[in-house]
């Protein structure tokens, strides 16, 4: 039986308080380094936390070929996003919908690849691009990032939620697999594709280890690697590094604010499976 509003309300608000009590420390924990980064970027080094110095930004931007780093980051991230969305969507469709022998075992083998720490794969990947003569080039930087197992997994889960009747209807109307994929599945999977694109972009934008290994010249380095180089130029210039880091994180924040509606819907839908 339904209880009077008062008791339901108080129980509801207790639940809400508990949620906030648990979430607040986590939120502070998450945002603290970010705030510290912004604050440090505005402080002069000896008097940190006393005199804000906006000049750090101009200093950092002048000390580094910031524009080049930004361009490299953009090319690297966007190319990888395009590649991962395309390869993940086609592979996920095959794993979710096509019938072929050994399909589920093959998918399991892919999932096992998720278990391998990324760092373990850095050396074979480097040897591979070295063999092609692609070290310190866009091809080298991009090629080994084009397939994402977690992307395939994410989209496969989403594709499995799309009713099979839609495909059957299309098949009866004369559509082949490619037509079904492009005209029915892909348009319906837009939230999931947007989620994957945002995740992949953020991942590549923040990527440090692989670009550090795969590039040598500052003409090829993306932002993350370039910012780390500030250490070499000005010993340990925290203010400059933080200023550059703040500048580097802005595109990510813009992207998230633009795409967050899609992003959240995509996460919700794939999590329901």
């Amino acid at each position, binding site marked *: 039986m339904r209880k009077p509003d008062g008791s339901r309300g108080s129980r509801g608000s207790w639940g809400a308080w508990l949620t906030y009590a648990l979430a607040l420390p986590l939120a502070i924990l998450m945002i603290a380094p970010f705030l510290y980064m912004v604050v440090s970027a505005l402080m002069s080094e000896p008097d940190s936390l006393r005199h804000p110095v906006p000049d750090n930004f101009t200093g950092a931007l002048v000390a580094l070929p910031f524009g080049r780093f930004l361009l490299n980051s953009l090319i690297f991230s966007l190319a990888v996003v395009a590649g991962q969305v395309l390869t993940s969507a086609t592979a996920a469709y095959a794993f979710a919908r096509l019938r072929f022998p050994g399909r589920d075992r093959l998918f399991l083998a892919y999932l096992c690849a998720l278990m391998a720490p990324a760092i373990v794969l850095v050396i074979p990947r480097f040897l591979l691009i070295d063999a092609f003569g692609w070290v310190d080039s866009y091809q080298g930087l991009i090629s080994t990032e084009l397939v994402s197992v977690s992307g395939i997994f994410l989209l496969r889960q989403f594709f499995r939620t799309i*009713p099979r*009747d*839609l495909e*059957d*209807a*299309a*098949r*009866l*109307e*004369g*559509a082949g697999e490619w*037509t079904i994929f492009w*005209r*029915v599945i892909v*348009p*319906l999977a837009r939230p999931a594709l947007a989620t994957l694109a945002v995740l992949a972009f953020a991942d590549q934008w923040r990527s440090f280890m692989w670009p550090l290994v795969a590039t040598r010249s500052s003409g090829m380095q993306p932002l993350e690697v370039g910012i780390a180089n500030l250490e070499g130029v000005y010993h340990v210039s925290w203010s400059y590094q933080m200023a550059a880091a703040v500048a580097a994180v802005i595109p990510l924040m813009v992207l998230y604010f633009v795409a967050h509606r899609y992003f959240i819907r995509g996460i919700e839908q794939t999590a329901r499976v």
Partner: protein
Amino acid sequence: MASVTLRRLAKRYDPHGRPALEELSLAVNDGEFFVLLGPSGCGKTTALRCIAGLDEPSAGEVLIGERDVTRLDPAARDVAMVFQTHALYPHLTVRRNIAFGLEVRRVPAAEIARRVQQAADRLGLGTLLDRRPGELSGGERQRVALGRALVREPQVFLLDEPLSHLEPTLRAELRAELLELHRALHTTVVYVTHDQIEAMTMGQRIAVLERGRLRQVGTPAELYGRPADVFVARFIGSPGMNILRGRGRGTGDDGGVVDCGAFSIPVSLERYEGEIYLGVRPEHVSLVAPDQGIGAADVRGVEPLGPDTLVRLDGGGEPLVARLHGIPDLRPGDRVGVKLDRRQLHLFDAAGARLG
């Protein structure tokens, strides 16, 4: 237009499990409105999907007209299907949903526009063409799904429980519309449903399936008046036929008797001795004084329907339903006598098959 023939069609999804369909042979006539009827899991949708080519049969053949289409792709069979879930593409407008099949087949744009408009006019979708499925009511969605099938001008329409998701009033309305459409187009329709009222009101002929097996094919009147077995007798009719289990004795000279619990019922029975099922429709059961008729029973429930009333009875452990005209003055606990219309009794042997 074309006939549809199924020859010993079988389908097994799980090699170790029960077959979904066992040696189904059927002939649907050209232009006929044919219904596949049965409870869920009886294999009716499997049969439809095998006709459509969405499932490949494990054995047997599917013919559309004279053409063996068993191994053909769905698109090559010239059939259109309406799904239980409507299966409209949510990202496309009504217009594009209806046009999808024609676009895929690269029909010229002017011809697509003409056919979409024609289908929309016929189904009253003219004002909805630029909306998306999410903005439509259940009935409108069903009309769009029909439009998508119509516009292709196929030889055979396959309809898989197209009305089951709709509310009862709308269902009755669309039932009439579908029949009108069939009368206008004369296209062969294979219609799947679990709802025997839908089957009886729409089907020119009905095939009753149960657990993958065909039980009976016939017109609504045949299924209702001469059910082939106990399953069909119980399944057709609302409520279904009363089935009393007892012992039958037939002497051969049009005399015989069935003893079941409190009742001793005289019947016409050839030479017979053993377990027997006696069936009688609720409308052929009447109530008399407790000391008259074949025996006495207690009233367990009274369900007035308006023109008729269903009276649920208990005759010494045997449940029995009577359909009486009007609203009789009866209450649970009353004791009444039971009388059966002797000309309307159905007899089934111990295995449930019809006798005579």
